[in-house]
């Protein structure tokens, strides 16, 4: 009996100790990234991850003084993987939305851009309820853009959902879909500015409606990791203040990506 009590106490002590350690120290932060969303996150020809998200993640870890371990994860499994503790934070251009906030917590935004449609030059498609009728629109599954289309045009257009933005761009190129809807910067740098995208152009206004497009991209953490959220928020403020952020941003963009 006594021995059993001792075992229980020992197990409890180890458990508490581990919990305390986990809660206090973030020596190593595992970060979920997508790796298929240029220019924010992509796998380079040398097999290494690169992009704005990747640089920001490394800068934040450096500021916190923790080791960064980047974990590649498909987009539509991102939040479940975070909740399953496959990693501790998501730095993957994830927009801060009410829907997602029910499952995870977000830091302050680290950038904000608008969404836009892309059409083939000369196709003459206009972004109105009438103009979109019966059109095939390619979108990345489980994104704010997917939700926006589903809620606003779900009954009049054919929504074609892809696992990655790259796949959607490929099918746009192949002519399988009439329009793309995605983040304007991802479309500009990942598609329109590239050799493949020369026959395509933006159409329609910049979409920024908070209800669908949120308050910008933030870093998602589990709700119980409030300490990590605070560390990350402080780190975002710090790299904004000391010029690290601007240095990284300048590498990729010739305008203010942080947004107003």
């Amino acid at each position, binding site marked *: 009996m006594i021995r059993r009590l001792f075992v229980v106490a020992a197990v409890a002590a180890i458990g508490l100790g581990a919990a305390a350690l986990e809660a206090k120290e973030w020596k190593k932060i595992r970060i979920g990234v997508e790796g298929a969303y240029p220019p924010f996150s992509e796998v380079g020809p040398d097999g290494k991850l690169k992009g704005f998200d990747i640089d920001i993640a490394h800068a934040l870890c450096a500021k916190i003084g923790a080791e960064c371990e980047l974990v590649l994860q498909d987009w*539509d499994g991102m939040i479940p993987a975070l909740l399953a503790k496959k990693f501790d934070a998501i730095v993957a251009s994830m927009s801060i939305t009410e829907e997602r906030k029910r*499952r995870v917590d977000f830091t302050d935004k680290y950038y904000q851009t608008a969404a836009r449609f892309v059409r083939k030059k000369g196709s003459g498609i206009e972004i109105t309820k009438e103009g979109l009728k019966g059109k095939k629109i390619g979108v990345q599954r489980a994104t704010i853009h*997917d939700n926006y289309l589903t809620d606003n045009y779900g009954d009049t257009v054919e929504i074609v959902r892809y696992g990655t933005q790259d796949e959607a761009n*490929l*099918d746009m190129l*192949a002519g399988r879909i009439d329009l793309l809807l995605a983040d304007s910067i991802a479309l500009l740098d990942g598609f329109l500015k590239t050799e493949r995208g020369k026959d395509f152009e933006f159409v329609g206004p910049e979409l920024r409606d908070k209800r669908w497009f949120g308050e910008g991209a933030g870093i998602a953490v589990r709700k119980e990791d409030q300490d990590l959220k605070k560390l990350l928020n402080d780190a975002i403020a710090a790299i904004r203040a000391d010029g690290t952020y601007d240095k990284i941003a300048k590498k990729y963009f010739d305008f203010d990506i942080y947004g107003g």
Partner: protein
Amino acid sequence: MIDLALVLDNLPLYLRGTWTTLWLTFASLALGLVLAVPLGLARTSRNPLINGPVWAYTYFFRGTPLLVQLFMIYYGAAQFVWVRESVFWPLLSQAWFCALLAFTLNTAAYTAEIVRGAVQATPRGEIEAARALGMSRALVLRRIVLPSAFRRALPAYGNEMVFMLHGSAVASTVTIVDLTGAARIVNSRYYSPYEAFLTAAVFYLVLTFLIVGLVKLLERRWYAHLRPRPG
């Protein structure tokens, strides 16, 4: 806990997905079977000009993953301008056609080998007896070889039908909203992988039971002569 309301809300989506899975699976099985019988017979030929190409075909399609075959047809073909300007593009640009093509070629390869094995296992005596009765080669094939080969092939073919049903899940990777595609949409909208995929799993289980039941029924009919008779 399982969120039943979420599943019920999305039931129409799952039902549409089930329909897509069903027709894709059975259309490719039917087309594949039609291809597989002559291909399987060709594989029993001793002439290398007939046997060889079919061997290469079944070797390739049984030796590579279905997912890779589908990607080669869907994304691979679209890469070439001459394909996009050809008369086949209206079909090849459709996701359902690419899936149907990949699935048909895949199941035809497996089924051809099943047919080959069953035909080669025909007892020589049966063929010799039929020839002795004056039947032509075609008649022997039609009356003796194929009927008994189909009987022998049925259990293996039942497996192939179930494999094809499960294999059809890869259609969801090329924008087709089949049963798995429906589950992925639900998962991504509500971040509830458990409910989303468990529901799909239940649907797949039911479909599998239906196929297994169908094969059982056929076995009862085709193997009636082998069953012990009362009295």
